[in-house]
């Protein structure tokens, strides 16, 4: 995307335009080639976003497809004031949340009542995990925890916004997040311990 941004061209009004702006303008006109190019630019990153909210790659691809349908349907509303990637990401997050609410196997798991007893860790561990390993741990969280954790820790939404998105109160969101965070920290510590043991065993061998 950055490389595209450096290649300047001109529109009909002789204003300098980056290749990305040209792509956006063409996509707004409904040109399929521009849409495909935008998809190729952002699909991998957005599938990573969708993957964090779902439990399988198949579901994540469904969300990705649905999200890009929305992107191309509403790209006319993108005024070019912010980054296109951030705009698409927001659509993907909203689509993921809607997907969780819509499908029964996620909806039934999205319970925000009194939590079951989980091991609680008040420490804040340092992360030594790769993104894939961290993501697999996040995806092992219950769906409700997973959604709240992703929205707050990764996307940076406030608890007020999360409450509005999920239809829960701000306090519920806050408590759900704390429980998810503690659970994840415990798992991260266990995982790192496990990795250390493995590394030690490999050295011994």
């Amino acid at each position, binding site marked *: 995307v950055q490389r595209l941004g450096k290649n300047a061209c001109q529109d009909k009004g002789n204003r300098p335009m980056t290749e990305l702006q040209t792509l956006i303008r063409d996509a707004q006109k409904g040109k399929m080639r521009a849409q495909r190019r935008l998809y190729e630019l952002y699909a991998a990153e957005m599938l990573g976003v969708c*993957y964090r909210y779902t439990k399988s790659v198949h579901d994540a*691809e469904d969300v990705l*497809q649905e999200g890009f349908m929305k992107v191309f349907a*509403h790209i*006319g*509303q993108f005024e070019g004031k912010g980054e296109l990637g951030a*705009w698409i990401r927001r659509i993907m997050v909203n689509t993921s949340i809607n997907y969780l609410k819509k499908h029964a196997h996620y909806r039934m798991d999205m319970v925000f009542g009194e939590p079951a007893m989980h091991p609680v860790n008040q420490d804040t561990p340092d992360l*030594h995990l790769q993104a894939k390993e*961290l993501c697999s741990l996040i995806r092992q969280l219950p769906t409700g925890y997973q959604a709240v954790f992703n929205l707050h820790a990764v996307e940076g939404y406030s608890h007020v916004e999360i409450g509005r998105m999920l239809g829960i109160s701000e306090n519920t969101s806050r408590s759900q997040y704390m429980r998810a965070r503690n659970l994840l920290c415990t798992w991260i510590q266990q995982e790192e311990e496990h990795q250390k043991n493995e590394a030690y065993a490999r050295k011994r061998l």
Partner: protein
Amino acid sequence: MKRMPGKDFEQQVRDTMGSWRIEPSAGTWGRLEEGLARKKKRRRAFYFFLLAGLLAGGALLLTEKALHEPDHAAHPIASSMQRPEPVHSPGANAGREAGPQQTEAGKTTNPAANSSPAVNSTSFNSGPESTNPASAIDRAGNSTTAVRQTSGNPSTASRLYGRSNATRAFAGDADPRKQRLPADRAKDEQADGDRPLSIAENPGPSSGHRAYASPFSIADTIATRPMAIGGTPAPSTSAGSGQADKYTRKKHWSFGLTAGAGRAAFTEGIGLSQAKSADLNAGPSTGSGVPPQGPAYDYRQDPSAGWEAGGWTRVSVSRKWSFTAGVSYMQLSTRTPVGQSLGDSSRSYYNGYTRQVSTNSFSAGSQSEYRNRYHLLQLPLTAEWQLTPGRRLPVIWSMGLSPGYLLSSNALVRDSAQALYSHPDNQRGFQLGMRTGLRFRLMPSSAHPLDIGPVLQYQLNEVFADGIRDNGHLYYLGVEARLPLFFLSRVQR
């Protein structure tokens, strides 16, 4: 993974996950492309049916006239009425015998009618009929209004209209407005081609004191005529995007020009005021050269062209809603079939209170067409709703009111002698229109997006003053284009 000391947990997670990518499978784009094509097809179908619906609606409106063309012969009341035929009794017909005789040129040559207050009496009996075919209208150019008196047997009229009405009609001293009603009915009877009404005018000094005694029929013409359209659209702007818009509200102001063209028409449809049968211009014309009761003539205003131009300002209060105010000039025209011109210098008509000197007057007929023009200055106020999101082809629905003033008009009205004339006093000044339309925004991403679409305007007020017969409402159906010239934005927190 590199250790990130000093960073909180959330920041570490964000840094770790931020740039993580997964390549989607090869078939994902294929499915997406299929879905996009399906959606495009669906959108085309939507616009097709929308356009088809609009065209069908427009066609229905324009054919309204043909569907509701007045048919006097088939009018249930008129046709079922067993009308008594007037018989001239020797005594009562004295005035008639000496009454005005009509020449081919439509002038009366009976000196008695001018020199003395002629009384034209008509008797209604159940016996054989005797009619004065000349309809005995005094057209000798007298400056005073004739008083018509009729004597006869009221029994038939009483049977037809009830005793009180019949008594009033024959007494000749009741409220002239109320008593004109039977005269109207008689006129309609004449339009049926049955028999001319026998009316004599008494050129007495009184003004407006008239008694009509021809209670033949209550068949008032119910003429429905096609309509008109007109509109003033405005472009809507999309509000800002993003999360920040939840907390800020943007107000966009835009200013621009509008122009449109279409068809204007005239109908007797529903409105704020309905002209009753008090027919102020039903009095006899006293000028020279007006033909007497002519053949059956169906007054009508056929649809013709209309156009408008003006300026507007619009404020968008949300992503979908905006409000527009403007000022525009609208010219609507209709066509009326007329006979020969009767000159324009010495024509003088009585409209119930004042004498009117007309500049245009025609006899009834269909030899040529006269173009009625209405010049309106209006202030359209509309609310607009963007029906479709997105910027590819936004569709906006506008609806509102359009108060205005009828600056001038040369529209013809009809007097009781079937002569057509125009006069400024006949028009109603204030006009309130109801306006709606659809607009398609072309080039929405450009600095000056063009809005274009159909618009319909219906005038709730009748176009003629109270008491003018053949009153009705104007409407306009056309295509309107709006071009914004410049924009202003203001952000409210």
